[in-house]
C-alpha cells in the first residue's frame, strides 16, 4: 500500500516488454550474459557504481554520479519508464546501461558504464541497449549524447549517428545525436554480438549478481597515478 501523496508523486508507468537475455564471448574467452536488471536489484547496482563516483579519469565520476541518481530515481519511482540492463561475467557485474522509453516511437538513452575495461564491454552493452529500444520496444529512434571522448567514438562515430542539435536531450540539452531504425540495421552486423537463448547453466550464473572484486579505474583516483 502506498499513501495518496506518494501515489501522486509517482509517474504513470507503461508496461515495457522484457529484454530477452543473451550472451557473447569476449576476446578473453569469458562469456558475458546480458540481461535486464530488476528494480529490486537497484540498491545492489548502486553499490557497484559508488566507487567510481570519485574517478575523474575518462569521466567516470560524471557518468557514475548521474547513473547513480538515475537508477535511484527509477528505484524510488521518480522516473517514467526507465529500464536497466547489466552485463555479468560469472555473475560479476561487468557493466551497466540504462535509458527510458519516452513514447511508443522514441527512446532516450541515458548512460553506459563499463566496470571491466579493455574488452569493449561498454560497446557491447550500448549495442544491447539500442537493440532493446529498436527491436524489442519498437522505437523508431533513440536520442543519445556522449559525455566522454570514448563514448563519442563508440556510439556517435561508430554508429554514424545522425546529429539533431535542435533536440534537447534529458541529460541537459547537450548536442543530441539520433540512432534511427535505418542506422541500427545498417550497423547491426558489424557492431552487435550475442546469441539467444542463453544456456540455462550460464543464465543461472547471472541470477545473483556479485560485486567486482577490483576496479582497475581506482588507480586513477584524484592524487593517484596519472
Amino acid at each position, binding site marked *: 500500500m502506498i499513501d495518496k501523496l506518494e501515489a501522486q508523486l509517482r509517474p504513470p508507468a507503461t508496461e515495457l516488454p522484457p529484454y530477452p537475455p543473451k550472451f*557473447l*564471448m*569476449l*576476446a*578473453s*574467452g569469458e562469456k558475458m550474459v546480458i540481461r535486464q536488471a530488476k528494480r529490486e536489484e537497484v540498491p545492489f547496482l548502486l553499490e557497484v557504481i559508488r566507487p567510481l563516483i570519485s574517478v575523474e*579519469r575518462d569521466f567516470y565520476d560524471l557518468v557514475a554520479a548521474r547513473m547513480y541518481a538515475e537508477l535511484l530515481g527509477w528505484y524510488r519511482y521518480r522516473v517514467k519508464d526507465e529500464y536497466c540492463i547489466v552485463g555479468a561475467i560469472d555473475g560479476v557485474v561487468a557493466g551497466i546501461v540504462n535509458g527510458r522509453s519516452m513514447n511508443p516511437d522514441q527512446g532516450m538513452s541515458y548512460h553506459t558504464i563499463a566496470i571491466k575495461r*579493455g*574488452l*569493449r564491454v561498454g560497446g*557491447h552493452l550500448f549495442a544491447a541497449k539500442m537493440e532493446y529500444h529498436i527491436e524489442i520496444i519498437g522505437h523508431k529512434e533513440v536520442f543519445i549524447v556522449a559525455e566522454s*571522448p570514448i563514448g563519442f*567514438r563508440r556510439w556517435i*562515430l561508430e554508429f554514424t549517428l545522425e546529429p539533431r542539435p535542435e533536440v534537447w536531450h534529458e541529460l541537459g540539452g547537450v548536442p543530441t545525436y539520433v540512432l534511427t531504425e535505418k542506422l541500427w540495421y545498417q550497423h547491426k*552486423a*558489424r*557492431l*552487435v*554480438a*550475442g*546469441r539467444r537463448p542463453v544456456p540455462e547453466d550460464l543464465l543461472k550464473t547471472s541470477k545473483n549478481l556479485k560485486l567486482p572484486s577490483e576496479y582497475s579505474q581506482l588507480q586513477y583516483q584524484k592524487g593517484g597515478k*596519472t
Partner: protein
Amino acid sequence: MRKVAVYGCGMNQFGMYEGGLVQMMAEVSLAAMDDAGVDKVDAVFVGNMGGGILNHQTGIASALVDCLSLYPAAAMLIENGPASGGAAVSAAFMAVASGLYDTVLVTGGEKMRTVSPWEVTDFVATLTHPEAEYIYGITLPALAGMFTRLYMEKYGVTAEHLAKVAIKNHLHALHNPYAHVQLAPVMEAILGSEDALVVNPYVADPLRFYDLCPVSDGAAALILSSPEVGNFKKPPVFIKGIGHATDTHTVHERKDPTDLTAVRLAAEKAYKMADLGPKDVMVAELHDPFTILEIAESEEVGFFPKGEGHLALERGDTSLGGSIPINPSGGLKAKGHPVGATGVAQICELVWQLRGEAGKRQVKDAKVGLAVNLGGFGNNVVVTILAREE
C-alpha cells in the same frame, strides 16, 4: 672507437598519460638517470615523431633539457618515423663511441592519445609517399593488410598464425607492468566464436583488430656512456652492434614486396659489427605493430629461413621458454607503440633481460639481445645488438 654501454633505463606504463609530452619524457629520463646514478649528462638525444602534429609542440629536446635543468647539455631531436627511438640510440651511440660526449641521455616519447584514432592513423600515414601513396588514401594498416595477403599466398601463413603472434605477445605482456594492454585474448574468441566478427573485426583484410597494436602514450629513456668514463650504479650492457639501412619510400617499387630488405641489411651490418650471428641471439624485440611483421622480421634477421617464421611460431620457438623468445615485453602489439618511444623501449627491455631484471618474463640466462626498430613500411630500419659481456 670507444666501447659504449647502457647504464640506466627508465620507462612508464604505456597507455594513456594525462600530463604533457615533455613532463612524461622528463619522468622516464629521471628514472634512467637514477638507475645509472648520474645527475648530469653531456647531451640529450630525443626520439619523437609527432610532437608538432599531435601535441602542437616542437623543439622538444630543448624543452626536455630545460624541464630537467640539464643545461648546458647539447640537445637534439631525431625524427625518423617510427624508427625515431632506434635512430636516437644510434646517434647517441656514435656520440659516445667517437668521444664527442662521455655520458648521454636518450629519451623517446610520444603522446598519441590526444587525438582520435582516425587522426592518429592519418598522422602515421604522413610517412608514406605523398604523391604515390598518401593521396590515394593509403594507411599503414592498409599497407600491412596487402603485405599480409601476399605473405599468406606465398608462404602459407594463416589467420591462426597471426592470432598466435597476438596471443603470445599478450601473454608475455601480462608479466610486464609497463605494457599498455594487460589482458590476453584467446583463439576461440577472436577467430572461432560466432561473436568473433564483432569482438575482433576486420580492420584491413586480412588483418583484424587483434592483429594491430594499440594507440598509446608512452616514453622510455636510457643512459649511455663508456666504461672508460668511470663506474655507474648499474653494470654495463654493451651495445655491440648497430646496423641502419633504408629501402624504397614506396612499397610497390620493391622487387618483392614481401621482402623487408632493409631489415635484412641492417641486421647483417649489426651482426658484422658485433662479430655475432643469429644463433648467438637469445632474446629479441622485433617491431610488430602488425602481427605479420614479427613473423617476417624473424626471418629477415636470420632466426629462421625465409617463409618459415610461422612454422617456428607454431613450434613455440618464439614464446618465453622457446629457443629464441621474441617480444618478451609484449612487443608493440601488447606493450603499445608510442612511435617515438618504441625504439628506446625495446632497448630498455633488452637491458632488463640481459641484467636479469625482467621478473616473470625473464629469458633464462640471456646474454645477447637484438632489437629491430622499423620505420615507414620497412624503409628505414635500425637493428641493435646488445650483450652482457664486453
